[in-house]
């Protein structure tokens, strides 16, 4: 039985006012990372390294509450700008347009973001406005969450933690000065080869309401949830770490159909409150499974890369590498919350 909100306690958050969290977060962000980030509009953050003439501008963005996604991935070698929405809500067209203008270096702009109805509508409106200003915009939406729709409906799937790899590949491609066509193609290719699935063990709550947005009874978990505290595709008993890794990898490997000897990049991601200890315990099994499948693990990242505030749970992402993607994943980048090379 679901309890009504009146019966539940309010969650504890270290904030000043639920209505000011985004502005205040961005104030603190800019204060912390002056060498990496600049704010060109109240909700538009660009890389301090600035646009480069002839380089494709990469604009990412979406709702807040997923930090370090998206603002943490703005920087040289990765995204050029991020448009910042309210908690779990797409940014409106204005800050997206401001980002497009700021990063346009004459070679076009790529909008790259997770596939959610709200984001698609707002980014599309911004793209229409940018076109009026003669900025060429292409759009790629990420759809890495294998749990969110059957493979036949791949383009209905939502984008979750796999953004990390897809943004990385597209950012590296644009940093290498590839033309807009190529950066767009690479982003689609990266998305097609990136697969994520997650489980949740604890809910999160919005700063404005401070009510857990769902309940997970003792000893249960949500399977195939998103990154907004949405309920999962199914409920089930809380499994062991190994069984969770198996559940996820069975599903991902079945879709990915890798050949022995293929290389993968791995992300074991915390949804928020699940600590590194548990993520590494998951990674232990991930590694054993990939070894058993004859796959070579080229690189592994473990940590809170795409979160839903304080939600408990974890996701596992595999990117199926090839000659195109591997050098892009290895390409150096320098962001406020993420570095390679």
């Amino acid at each position, binding site marked *: 039985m679901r309890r*009504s909100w009146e019966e539940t306690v309010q969650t504890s958050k270290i904030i000043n006012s639920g209505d000011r969290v985004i502005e205040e977060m961005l104030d603190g962000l800019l204060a912390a990372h002056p060498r990496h980030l600049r704010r060109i509009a109240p909700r538009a953050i660009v890389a301090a390294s600035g646009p480069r003439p002839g380089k494709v501008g990469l604009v990412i963005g979406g709702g807040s509450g997923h930090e370090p996604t998206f603002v943490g991935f703005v920087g040289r070698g990765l995204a050029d700008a991020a448009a910042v929405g*309210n908690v*779990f809500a797409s940014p409106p067209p204005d800050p997206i347009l401001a980002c497009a203008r700021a990063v346009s270096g004459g070679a076009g702009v790529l909008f790259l973001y997770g596939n959610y*109805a*709200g984001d698609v*509508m707002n980014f599309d409106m911004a793209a229409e406005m940018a076109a009026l200003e003669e900025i060429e915009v292409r759009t790629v939406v990420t759809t890495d969450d294998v749990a969110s729709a059957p493979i036949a409906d791949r383009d209905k799937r939502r984008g979750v933690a796999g953004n990390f790899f897809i943004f990385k590949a597209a950012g590296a491609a644009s940093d290498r000065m590839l033309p807009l066509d190529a950066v767009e193609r690479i982003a689609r290719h990266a998305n097609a080869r990136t697969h994520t699935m997650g489980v949740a063990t604890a809910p999160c709550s919005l700063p404005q309401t401070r*009510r857990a947005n769902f309940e997970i009874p003792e000893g249960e978990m949500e399977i195939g949830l998103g990154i*907004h*505290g*949405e309920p999962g595709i199914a409920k089930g008993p809380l499994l062991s770490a190994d069984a969770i890794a198996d559940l996820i990898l069975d599903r991902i490997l079945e879709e990915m159909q890798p050949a022995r000897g293929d290389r993968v990049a791995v992300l074991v991601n915390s949804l928020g409150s699940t600590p590194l200890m548990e993520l590494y315990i998951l990674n232990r099994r991930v590694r054993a499974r990939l070894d058993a499948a004859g796959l070579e693990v080229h690189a592994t990242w473990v940590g809170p890369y795409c979160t839903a505030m304080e939600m408990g749970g974890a996701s596992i992402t595999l990117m199926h590498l090839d000659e195109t993607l591997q050098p892009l994943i290895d390409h150096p980048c320098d962001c406020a919350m993420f570095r390679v090379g």
Partner: protein
Amino acid sequence: MVLGARDLADVFSAMAEAMASARDHLCELDGVIGDADHGVTMVLGFGAVRAALAEADLEAMSPSDVLGAAARAFLNAVGASSGPLYATAFLRAAAQAKGKASLTAAEVAALLPVMGEGIAFRGKGARGDKTMLDAWLPAGEAAAAVLAAGGSGAEALQKAAIAAEAGAAATAAMTPRLGRAARLGARAVGHVDPGAASAAILIRVLADHPAVAR
């Protein structure tokens, strides 16, 4: 019996109040099948509209101007799904109201189908998708039917509100096809769509507002 810019602003203000009262209820509904923010988003959006109109020079504005200002304020305050959907609805209404210094209740009622079409256009949705359209589209049809039959604007709005409420209630039985809830599939059945619930409240506020009911 006619609505000027100030009356429309009053309606928006009443809508903002209704959203504030319904905030937690709408968030709870969204928590079951979405991301628990719909009430917050609607409060933010209508709050921004109210604030923008409070600063505007209503004497110098037409109803169309008010609807246009509402569209911009709503969109930029919220983003999300509701932002573009409601902004498009308000812009379509503004276009239809263009050139009129005031609107009769019948002219207001005639905005409803147009607004529903705007939402359907922007969100590429249809009836039965388990979204706010399941309130907006029946409301628009009910209003249009009353007006076509020669009924009053006030009656058209009352019928629209009833149709919206019935439409919202009917979403409980639907399997979602659009928006966040779509991923839940059958798990969402049995729960009312939050966007449809808020739409029914908004249309009810409009229908019962003294400016159209008097």
